[in-house]
């Protein structure tokens, strides 16, 4: 490995690989080596699967600083995942243009400005009655089923799928197939071949969708983008893929894992049920405590520079651990304690900097409506299996439960 500054004690240790194993019996806690790394230094050496030595950021302030500093570039060149996750072997070379998550300002800013109008607070607030309707409809179906049911399949997956489909203007008859492809792309058990196939089929569906929007633009985001902007079909494809990836998996797993976390803290759940004014605070604390985006964001140093007293070299890959940053004792008192009254608003669950989640208001809305509607509908909601039987998604970019069997 290359030593940059010999005087920095933490730099002399053997670089860690990126940890993914959760402590046994603590499905909500980040892998233990993150806390060890942070205790040494909020920025430590990290070994990537191909042997590259880059950095791991585990501190809240350092994480915010890295994500807000565009010298840490988002361009795909040289970017590596800190772990081999299913799908990470898929080449990023063939990605369509318009995937603004892989851009830096000012190119990134252009796309972001074209899209932001669809995710403003005002716009999202207008969506509330519709999201409530969708949640109620799913809960009606769940109730008819009598239980036990898998909450992931019955509620946590369909709610964001319905919301996102409607926002994008995806016809009702295409939604099942569309979600199936997305599932393959995010599944632990998919082969590379299955993923390539789903990617191709999904691309075809989205191209057809974009074509239809151009011919007969609706009031949805795609329809509006075809009328109001000069974005090409390929750019629209990239944008749509980003919105899908960002809008589906994260919200699904926050809904299911969040429900699991609430059920695992029955006293606080009872307090919440008794006083729904605690809901927004509970959502923020769940976002902080669970931080389901568990691998990355990843950046690449675009130049040599000094950062927090360290020499950063061009090409160094930097991974910010959001779950680690959100358990930083310098940012949160007793960070490993779940406390819905904490008022934990300064977390990094949505990232920070120019790439901070554009859909954060929408995510909060879906979570608030989702949790409240579910808990009100089923006052005696409980796990239908012992907690130790609930499997988790340790090797996926988005953490969560594989299934959450519940009864009421």
């Amino acid at each position: 490995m290359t030593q940059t500054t010999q005087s920095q004690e933490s730099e002399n240790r053997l670089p860690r690989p990126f940890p993914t194993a959760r402590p046994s019996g603590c499905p909500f806690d980040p892998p233990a080596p993150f806390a060890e790394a942070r205790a040494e230094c909020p920025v430590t050496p990290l070994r990537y699967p191909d042997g590259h030595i880059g950095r791991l950021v585990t501190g809240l302030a350092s994480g915010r600083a890295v994500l807000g500093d565009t010298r840490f570039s988002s361009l795909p060149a040289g970017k590596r995942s800190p772990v081999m996750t299913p799908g990470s072997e898929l080449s990023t070379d063939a990605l369509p243009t318009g995937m603004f998550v892989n851009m830096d300002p000012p190119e990134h800013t252009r796309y972001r400005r074209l899209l932001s109008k669809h995710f403003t607070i005002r716009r999202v607030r207008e969506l509330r009655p519709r999201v409530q309707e969708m949640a109620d409809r799913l809960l009606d179906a769940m109730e008819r089923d009598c239980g036990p049911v898998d909450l992931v399949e019955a509620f946590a997956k369909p709610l964001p799928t319905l919301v996102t489909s409607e926002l994008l203007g995806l016809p009702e008859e295409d939604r099942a197939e569309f979600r199936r492809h997305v599932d393959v792309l995010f599944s632990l058990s998919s082969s590379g071949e299955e993923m390539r196939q789903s990617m191709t089929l999904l691309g075809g569906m989205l191209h057809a969708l974009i074509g239809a929007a151009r011919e007969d633009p609706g009031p949805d985001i795609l329809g509006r983008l075809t009328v109001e902007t000069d974005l090409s079909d390929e750019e629209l494809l990239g944008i749509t893929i980003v919105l899908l990836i960002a809008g589906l998996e994260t919200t699904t797993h926050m809904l299911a894992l969040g429900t699991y976390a609430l059920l695992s803290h029955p006293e606080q759940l009872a307090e919440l049920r008794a006083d729904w004014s605690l809901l927004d605070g509970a959502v923020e604390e769940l976002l902080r405590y669970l931080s389901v985006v568990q691998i990355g964001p990843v950046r690449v140093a675009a130049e040599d520079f000094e950062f927090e007293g360290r020499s950063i070299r061009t090409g160094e890959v930097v991974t910010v651990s959001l779950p680690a940053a959100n358990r930083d004792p310098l940012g949160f008192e007793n960070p490993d304690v779940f406390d819905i009254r904490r008022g934990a608003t300064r977390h990094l669950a949505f990232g920070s900097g120019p790439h901070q989640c554009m859909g954060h208001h929408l995510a909060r809305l879906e979570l608030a409506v989702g949790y409240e509607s579910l808990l009100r509908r089923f006052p005696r909601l409980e796990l239908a299996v012992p907690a130790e039987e609930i499997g988790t998604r340790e090797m996926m970019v988005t953490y969560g439960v594989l299934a959450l069997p519940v009864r009421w």
Partner: protein
Amino acid sequence: MRIEIDRDLCCGAGTCVLLAPGVFDQDDEDGTVILLDATPGAGRRAAVEEAAERCPTAVISIT
């Protein structure tokens, strides 16, 4: 308290609008910040400071 914003760097997150409505608003066309009140009263200080701190691209400065 005097607030200044750098709208060029704004990413349209709208966190400031959530925290300090009446001081900040969001443009309906591109989501970027609109400063409604550059000199709000002292009673808004805590909210404005949190908005500045939580702004993802740090475009709000207070003097």
